[in-house]
């Protein structure tokens, strides 16, 4: 499970970084989204991967799943969602103002 999980984070982060470095605004947006997915999964993984455990210390349970990273991920998702929405608005405004979807607001000279 750990290997699959790590691979998933790696693929997401790699694709995110690659998209982030592309010149079109929508690609940058998708890159940021993928990167934040990777980050959230990573935080989750840092609480150690365990299955079938309660998130609190309960009598009779064989152990517990660390609840702190779950709380952190929840906060990070909310913040990431908000900022991504803002970024999307900004992207549309830039497109409307400049007439191009290049991140610098103008097409590169050929």
């Amino acid at each position, binding site marked *: 499970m750990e290997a699959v999980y790590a691979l998933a984070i790696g693929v997401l982060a790699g694709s995110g970084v690659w998209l*982030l470095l592309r010149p079109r*605004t929508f690609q*940058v947006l998708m890159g*940021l989204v993928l*990167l*934040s997915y990777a*980050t*959230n999964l*990573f*935080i989750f993984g*840092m*609480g*150690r991967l365990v299955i079938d455990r309660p998130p609190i210390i309960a009598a009779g349970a064989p152990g517990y799943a660390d609840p*702190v*990273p779950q709380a*952190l991920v929840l*906060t*990070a998702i909310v*913040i990431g969602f*908000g*900022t*991504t929405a*803002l*970024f999307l*608005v*900004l*992207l*549309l*405004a*830039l497109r*409307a*103002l*400049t*007439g191009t979807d290049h*991140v*610098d*607001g103008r097409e590169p000279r050929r």
Partner: protein
Amino acid sequence: MSFLLTHLPVLPIVLPLLAGVLMLFLGEPRRGPRIALALASTGLQLATGASLLFLTSDAAPFIWTEGIGVYAFGGWPAPFGIVLVVDRLAAVMVTLGAVLALATLVYSIARWDRPGQPFHTLFQFLLVGMNGAFLTGDLFNLFVFIEVLLAASYGLVLRGTGTDRVRSGFHYVAVNLVASAMFLIGVAVVYGAAGTLNLADLARRLPALVASDRILFDVGAAILGIAFLVKAGSWPLNFWLPGTYAVALPPVGAVFAMLTKVGVYALLRVGTLVSGDVAAASMVGQALFYFGIATLLAGTTGMLAAQHLARLVSYTVVVSTGTLLAALGLGIEALTAPVLFYLITSVLTTSTFFMLTGMTDRTRPGSAAGARDQELPEPAVAGTPFYMAFGVREPDPYGTEAEVGFAIPRAIAFLGLAFVSCVLLVTGLPPLPGFIAKFALLSTAIAAAPAAGVTTASWVLAGAVIASGFAGIVALTRVGIRLFWTVTARTTPRLLVGEAAPVAVLVLLCVGLAVLAAPVLGYLESAAASIHAPQGYMLAVLGPAPAPGGSP
């Protein structure tokens, strides 16, 4: 009274939060109550900051042990609940932020705050994030407050119209979102390695970490350090900064002068706590010095190349960040107090300078700003103006609405005097405190260098700081001559008291800082001593350490 005393540390966060939320219920026409609310909230923050300064000082040792106040949210004790921690450094930063906020607020009310509902609300939320970042004692909470701060700053930087602003804003948001992702990854690694996010608990658990966890922890700290360096505007991660600050509205630029210092503060705070016995801010270690020098040089080059005053002032922000990082990177403990003094003066100065640009811009005859009596130019680009997307009328700071308030006489003389004071402050010429700050910085660095074994680095720092000051004189003189002495076709701007007064007050405050340099530096030295002895911080937050060999 004791109720107020208990809850004093949380006031700088609760006050602007309440004020900001209440403003949402005041519709756009109700400007008076909104301004009153904003002024009351910011003024109370200043009062709170001043009381925190007093409570953490030696004058009141009986209230908080070691001058460190701890506020546990919901009464949950420290390693489990989130705490706010007020020590001297935090008190200084909160007070500085409140002074700046009050000045900027008064300045913005004169002309820049229409439509005011989004402006004042965002401004208060910015203060929530800023004060929270200074006060929090928890790493993840620091992330949340910095995000609050950034979210408000995204809104503020986009105020006004124009393609430039949207483009720079786009870059600003993108860079900061990536930095936030880095921050989160760093936080996660630190948690995975150390098992806690409370700063004091981290500092206490650190020596007991096994070697494999310690490596992981160092990696996490390094990633965090990179995130802080982006926020601080360190080279090569600062190309977003001059463009964004230069196109933001002047009051926004003025309050942003503080934002980069939040990054420096985080570096200093987390660095001194987690590095324990090692010297200051060794989170990024020796590299910090080189980053600082590179930032300093990049800022200096930018200053010489800049054509517009606002852009030049943005580069002085870069220069001040570079100076701070390089000085911290030397790792000399005695340097922390002069560094803090330099931080205070540079924040006040750049902020004043940004406000000044809003006024000098209006002397340019061709500029939209100069054309107050003419028809306002429509947004140059056809298509949808940015603000249409939100159904809000564009802010019109140059006054088709009737101006409220009185104009001051001899506007050009005032502008000239203020400009000269700012130049003296930025470049570090006597008699203003810019000189005292740089002198204290360099003399301490050189005096302490042989003992700390960083002689060459100290001289490099001295050379770079003096060279950047010289370049600043050259660049600012050139801009000053163009602004004030090439008189043809300049319009004399009409300055309102509300705009001129904050600039005058901040300059006078700087003069006061020069006169009272000794007590201020004395206080900062005690603040520096307190952050370099994290045992006091841990004791205040967590109570006495358990006996070694106890449960992990």
